[in-house]
């Protein structure tokens, strides 16, 4: 059980890091900075989901992390694509 608990603690630590990244999301002077922060948060959240899944000891809910790992990429691509146009 102590292993599961350690997974939970690690997830909590990563979530705190995500909070730090959210600061960059808030202050980031350019939209690109914010996008980078979002990308970082995405990675962190995938890790958190995997860790929490292990902490719950439920294998099936790791599917969510898989979906997220795949789909956050799409979101990032869209952001990059329309950041690049500079918009108006």
């Amino acid at each position: 059980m102590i292993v599961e608990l350690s997974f939970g603690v690690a997830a909590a630590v990563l979530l705190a890091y995500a909070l730090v990244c959210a600061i960059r999301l808030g202050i980031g002077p350019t939209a690109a900075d914010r996008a980078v922060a979002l990308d970082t948060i995405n990675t962190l959240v995938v890790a958190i989901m995997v860790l929490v899944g292990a902490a719950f000891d439920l294998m099936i809910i790791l599917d969510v992390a898989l979906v997220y790992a795949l789909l956050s990429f799409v979101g990032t691509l869209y952001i990059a694509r329309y950041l690049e146009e500079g918009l108006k």
Partner: protein
Amino acid sequence: MTLWASLLTMSLAMTVLAGLLAVVLRDLLAAALALGAQGLFLSLAFYLLQAPDVAIAQAGIGAALTTAIFLLAIRRTRRKEEE
């Protein structure tokens, strides 16, 4: 149990925080990004509330498609909010 509660509290707090950012940021692109982050943390909150079905739906729809549609719409309009 308390660990779970602190995880949930943090993810909820960040959901609200990202929502606040989505409201206050004047740059619409940034606001859309903040909305994406909000959906992401919401998905995490669903995950922690033992709702993996909803979390997958929120991840798929909130992370990729909503962001995509918002960005496509912002591309066709004006990026800065005029005041």
